[in-house]
């Protein structure tokens, strides 16, 4: 509790002021007002955070602001919620925390946003400047701690410039390849008087990205595409973040090139389209991984070739030349050598390449081959009536019961893979998950952020695992307080399931610390929080319960007791070859 202890209890008592007029017109008088003004100038609608001693002046300035502040149960939840907000809205999300433990609790969420290139602005309180370095109460070297996991972070030194600094940090978070930024705000800086209104928010001059690719490189890439016999498009998260799904879809369809996505790229291309082979990688579809293994020209857009996608680099797309489109030059040839590097904005460069192509590649046979693989390795699971409930079935029913533009958030583990495999995604920004960092507990706070960012008529479903849900379950109190219409589906196998799967496969079945049969009754816990709670044990109850939970106007939790023995397949063993995916445990 000490975290929330106020150091000066002089609460504002200007209750008579009209908030609408004040928010627009009152001149800036303190550093903290400049901070909030900078956010307002950029159209920030929502912020997620937790109060505390060193950030109190900033919260005080929020008192008269139109920015919707959502108090979270834990700062990690604030960072994840802001992250999910940014994924759904495609603009940086904002989170706040106090100094010391508040700031360090944000770290996981900032690191998560950093790995997934999600725009995020974190504002942290700090002890007064003259106490910095003295190990003062609730002091942490926040810029030091977060330097490796931010695009850039700032230590605000002056009330006169703090507004511009916050504006610059917000602009930088969303510029080019998005990512998290942080501004550390010493308490004296936010309390100090200033009349400096923040200017236009501009990213620093030294970071300006290049949006248009070099024409000569474009010509060469276009020639390679024309000549390809087995071309394959690989759409990463950058297609969605670059708002380039329209160009990406037109490009694929215009040249009839099959498409695989990465997991963050889910939604960039409709999964029900004939050209779509779904997502590739460790638990991707067999056909996506076969296509990657046999393509002769991989046209990768907005992906960083994570090892969960590539498997062992030596066997990744072994027959392919690689065209790599990315706005971050450092991603070119970082993991996979790019034979045709195209640095620029995904949509602009795709249009450039499209213009430069004279004739689409002749790939009838290749498309047929991809279709054959789809038939050969279908995504499918067994559902005999006498077996325990299969998680894949639950995901399919949830998909059917919700709208086409429903947003799915997830934690990390087996449930995440089943959600990604068995939900048919067709729209960008409807799959909100923790990819690069693999943060268990991401799902529920992300659902809160997504709900606040989404349209009112969009369904928001959190598919979580028992272990993952338990990590941030306290955020259910926030969903109840804010009356958020969220359906949480817990795929409960009483295991930390992905670990169990690996222990069975690679540690001779020694299930050390993987059993979670001590988990609480999630339906009862949900009711205790004030949400609706359901428990489902078999097939007959699934559809009906899902319907009721989705229809309920508020947070609901369905505790699905699924087959504890079910595992995630296909699977490319860590460091293995994409084309050698296992379909059963025997094949590992």
């Amino acid at each position, binding site marked *: 509790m000490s975290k929330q202890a106020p150091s000066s209890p002089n609460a504002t008592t200007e209750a008579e002021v009209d908030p609408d007029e004040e928010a627009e017109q009152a001149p800036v008088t303190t550093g903290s007002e400049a901070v909030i003004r900078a956010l307002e100038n950029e159209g920030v609608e929502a912020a997620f955070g937790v109060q505390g001693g060193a950030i109190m002046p900033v919260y005080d300035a929020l008192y008269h602001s139109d920015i919707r502040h959502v108090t979270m149960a834990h700062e990690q939840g604030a960072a994840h919620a802001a992250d999910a907000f940014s994924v759904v809205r495609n603009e940086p999300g904002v989170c706040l925390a106090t100094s010391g433990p508040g700031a360090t609790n944000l770290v996981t969420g900032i690191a998560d946003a950093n790995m997934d290139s999600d725009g995020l602005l974190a504002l942290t309180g700090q002890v007064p400047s003259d106490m910095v370095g003295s190990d003062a109460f609730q002091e942490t070297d926040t810029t030091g701690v977060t330097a490796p996991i931010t695009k*850039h972070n700032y230590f605000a030194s002056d009330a006169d410039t703090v507004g511009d600094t916050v504006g610059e940090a917000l602009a930088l978070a969303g510029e080019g390849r998005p990512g998290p930024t942080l501004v550390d705000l010493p308490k004296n800086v936010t309390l100090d008087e200033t009349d400096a209104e923040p200017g236009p928010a501009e990213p620093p001059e*030294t970071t300006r990205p290049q949006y248009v690719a070099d024409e000569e490189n474009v010509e060469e890439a276009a020639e390679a595409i024309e000549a390809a016999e087995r071309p394959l498009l690989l759409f990463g998260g950058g297609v969605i973040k670059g708002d380039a799904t329209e160009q990406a879809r037109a490009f694929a369809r215009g040249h009839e090139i099959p498409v695989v996505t990465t997991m963050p790229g889910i939604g960039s291309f409709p999964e029900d389209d004939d050209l779509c082979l779904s997502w590739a990688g460790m638990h991707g579809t067999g056909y996506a991984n076969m296509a990657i293994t046999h393509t002769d020209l991989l046209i990768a857009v907005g992906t960083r070739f994570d090892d969960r996608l590539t498997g062992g680099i030596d066997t990744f797309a*072994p027959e392919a030349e690689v065209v790599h489109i990315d706005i971050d030059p450092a991603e070119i*040839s970082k993991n996979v050598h790019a034979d045709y590097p195209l640095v620029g904005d995904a949509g602009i460069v795709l249009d450039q390449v499209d213009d430069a192509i004279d004739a689409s590649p002749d790939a009838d046979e290749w498309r047929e081959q991809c279709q054959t693989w789809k038939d050969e390795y*279908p995504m*499918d699971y067994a559902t005999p009536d006498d077996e325990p409930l299969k998680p894949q079935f639950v995901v399919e029913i949830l998909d059917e019961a919700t709208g086409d533009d429903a947003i799915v958030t997830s934690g990390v583990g087996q449930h995440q893979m089943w959600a990604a495999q068995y939900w048919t995604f067709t729209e960008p920004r409807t799959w909100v998950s923790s990819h690069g960092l693999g943060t268990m507990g991401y799902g529920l706070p992300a659902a809160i952020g997504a709900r606040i960012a989404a349209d009112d008529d969009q369904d928001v479903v959190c598919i979580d695992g028992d272990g993952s849900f338990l990590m941030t379950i306290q955020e259910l109190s926030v969903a109840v307080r804010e009356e958020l219409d969220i359906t949480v589906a817990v795929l409960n196998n009483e295991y930390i399931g992905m670990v169990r799967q690996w222990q069975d496969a690679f540690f001779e079945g020694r299930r050390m610390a993987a059993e979670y*049969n001590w988990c609480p009754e999630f339906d009862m816990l949900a009711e205790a929080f004030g949400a609706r709670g359901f428990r489902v044990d078999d097939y007959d109850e699934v559809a009906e319960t899902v319907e009721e939970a989705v229809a309920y106007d508020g947070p609901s939790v369905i505790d699905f007791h699924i087959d504890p*023995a079910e595992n995630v397949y*296909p699977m490319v063993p860590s460091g293995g070859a994409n084309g050698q995916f296992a379909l059963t445990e025997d094949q590992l």
Partner: protein
Amino acid sequence: MSSQENDETDDLPKHGLKGPSPDERPHPEGRRNSQGIRIDPEAEAEPEQRRAVLSALVEDDPGVLSRIAGLFSRRQFNIESLTVGPTTVENHSRITMVIEESDPGIDQAEKQLAKLKPVIAVGELDDDAVRTELVLLKVEGDEPDKVHAVTEMYDGQTLDAGPRTITVQLTGDEQKIDDAIDAFRQFGIIEIARTGYTALARGDQATVPGEKPGTADEPTQPTNAQ
């Protein structure tokens, strides 16, 4: 569900998917090396490491050096030396780094450096760049004449000569410094402080891309400015 029941996993029906098993599928012939470059399996597989001198112009933001050092450390770039000092432009510093990496590694180090906000521009220096290192050597003072002779041979300077120790300063390229240290070993070296390389491009060539030599009043423009 208890763990006992779960132990019966093996008895459950295997529901696997259709299609041939992994070892029955075709194995493509191609392959990539550890740098992700598609290679001829018969030819050399791994790129060799070499030393590269990188020069970066940076803004004098607080913590700029720790950001750069932290980048090298967390990305496991093999750094040999790093020097830093002000330039003719106010609020700008030049950082000279020597790293030992493969060509793709050097390329990656440059690009990652360029991403840091305080870094204005970064580039690798050519082999003919002017590069020099400073070293201070403290040796036993028993044979001052001989020490002086060796110091002269290497164009060094004596900075301090006492009854028990002599401290000399030498500058030059790495080879010269190494040779000099070898030569001083006979006297008994007590302490050494080396700075690592600092370097500038030769002639009227810019040391980092975008830098305009001889126009000290004009701040360097970032190379990626549009």
